[in-house]
């Protein structure tokens, strides 16, 4: 089909060619052809994901004692590690969220958030398999009464959005 179009164009050199938007990636290679609408869509997904992680991080940063307890409920890590993570992870989520908003350190932030949501999801499944009745702690008290399916569905939706952002192969600002 592409060959046919090429032949048609070579026969009519003055024909009006369709305009396409080509973006260069950070390393200078032509990455893909983008439609402005799809760019806006990806940007919206960016901002939604960023908002989710900033909100979740902020809630947990405000109450690290509760978050340490929530991590401990999974019965995977020793208590001192749960405490250390309760102080550290919320800020990691917040910084990665802001990195998505300003599109600095973009791929680094995407990598970290993807790894985090994968770990959270696996921990949730592991807890369910072991019969633990856990409070996920994802969004502080807002998620206190979430059922396992709701918890899992939220995690998987976020994971799917992160994967979509990965494969959308956009052009982040260089470091």
């Amino acid at each position, binding site marked *: 089909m592409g060959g046919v179009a090429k032949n048609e164009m070579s026969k009519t050199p003055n024909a009006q060619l369709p305009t396409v938007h080509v973006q260069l990636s950070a390393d200078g290679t032509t990455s893909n052809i983008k439609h402005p609408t799809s760019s806006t869509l990806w940007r919206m997904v960016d901002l939604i994901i960023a908002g989710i992680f900033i909100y979740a991080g902020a809630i947990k940063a405000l109450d*690290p004692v509760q978050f340490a307890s929530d991590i401990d409920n999974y019965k995977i890590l020793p208590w001192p590690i749960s405490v*250390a993570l309760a*102080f550290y992870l919320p800020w990691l989520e917040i*910084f990665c969220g802001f990195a998505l908003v300003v599109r600095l350190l973009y791929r680094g932030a995407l990598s970290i958030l993807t790894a985090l949501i994968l770990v959270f999801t696996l921990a949730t499944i592991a807890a369910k398999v072991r019969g633990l009745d856990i409070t996920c702690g994802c969004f502080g008290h807002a998620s206190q009464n979430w059922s396992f399916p709701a918890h899992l569905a939220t995690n998987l939706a976020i994971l799917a959005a992160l994967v979509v952002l990965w494969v959308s192969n956009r052009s982040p600002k260089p*470091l």
Partner: protein
Amino acid sequence: MRSSLVRQVLFLAALALAPGVGEAVYFRHKISWQSAVLPSESVTVDQARTWGRNVIWVDARPDEEFARDHVPGAVSLNEDRWTELLPQFLAVWSPGTKVVVYCSSLSCNASREVARRLRREAQLPDVFVLEGGWEAWLKTR
């Protein structure tokens, strides 16, 4: 490109350390690194017994376990039926009374959660978690 990605990940990971450490310092008196319960918020069976009648025992275990056996005079208050059981507990509580919450064993979390909610949501002072829980009580019975 891969080294750039690793650099970005490491930079973000390092960036989050600073406020994390700051927060750990700020909350140093509100959380223990050794135990999930602050020493000032836990009590042994022997200590609790010395309080005599000035104590309400709260059983944070599921209903079936409470029905099977419990500390004499204990009130059932678990998170599964929190809204239903809390008023029943508050009806027997009076100011100045100490509250001792227990669950199954040293490793359970229910007593910690119930104690935390009693402090936060019911604004009760003098709420303690029983070290070792029901198992510890059985050993000293």
